[in-house]
């Protein structure tokens, strides 16, 4: 789904998706919330060049600014594997894979995971070197609520790449 072809987030038309289907009016609050959620989804998944700082709540935006400054974050290169539906938010398996040769000249320096709806947005930061050989990391994390999980990878050339994945949680992460 790209921003240009996204029927839920028209830039010129004032008609909402519900109005288009004749179901509910476009200024219906739940629909507005849904539209915001979809805008967030489009912002984090669809656009070629995104600043996740813009599409996410304030605290996460602040953390991202602290970590990456004003450097642009591009969607791509990062693959985030999470269960679509996790029964227990206290232990959610996660795997991050970054498309990188992991050579001296071109390698992943760090991978950062964020959860916008956790009490603290940062989950874990991992640092890799060319001696790591492969840019694949797995762990187990706590997720407080159904939400997007964001992964950002910093490469040795200074570029930043990201992806976001939606996770549904049945029982919230213990102690979070």
């Amino acid at each position, binding site marked *: 789904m790209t921003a240009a072809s996204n029927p839920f987030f028209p830039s010129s038309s004032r008609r909402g998706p519900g109005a288009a289907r004749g179901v509910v009016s476009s200024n219906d609050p739940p629909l507005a919330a849904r539209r915001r959620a979809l805008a967030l989804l489009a912002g984090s998944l669809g656009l070629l060049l995104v600043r996740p700082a813009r599409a996410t709540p304030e605290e996460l935006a602040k953390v991202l600014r602290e970590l990456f400054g004003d450097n642009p974050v591009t969607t791509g290169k990062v693959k985030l594997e999470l269960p679509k539906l996790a029964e227990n938010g206290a232990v*959610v398996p996660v795997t991050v894979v970054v498309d990188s040769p992991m050579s001296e000249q071109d390698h992943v320096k760090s991978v950062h995971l964020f959860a916008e709806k956790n009490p603290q947005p940062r*989950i874990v*930061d*991992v640092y890799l070197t060319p001696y*790591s050989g492969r840019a694949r990391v*797995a762990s187990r994390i706590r*997720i407080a609520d159904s939400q997007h999980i964001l992964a950002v990878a910093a490469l040795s050339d200074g570029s930043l790449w990201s992806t976001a994945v939606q996770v549904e949680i049945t029982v919230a992460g213990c102690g979070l």
Partner: protein
Amino acid sequence: MSWLANPRVRVPERAKRGEVFEIRAMVDHPMESGFRLDNVGKPITRNIVQSFTCTYDGHEVFRAVLHPAVSTNPYFLFYAVASNSGELHFDWTDDQGDSVKHVARIEVEG
């Protein structure tokens, strides 16, 4: 008393030179987030594993900075390039400054 205990590490016994091998590491730790309350409503002091590192053949191959959103008994899977026979050093440190270390050996052939 330290909350860190029982480090478990899985490293292959041998590997070919240049091969990328898988490492799994886990340690016992409650990862107390600092967001929970005790039975009289007082916040329980945060104590999590703050950092985990793995070095091999004089190089850092993996380092993690953990936050309260990492699960109890933190687990990591990662990789390293087989360069020379030797030891892999694993080190976990928590908020109280306690640490636990573990050493694994790998034989590199060819």
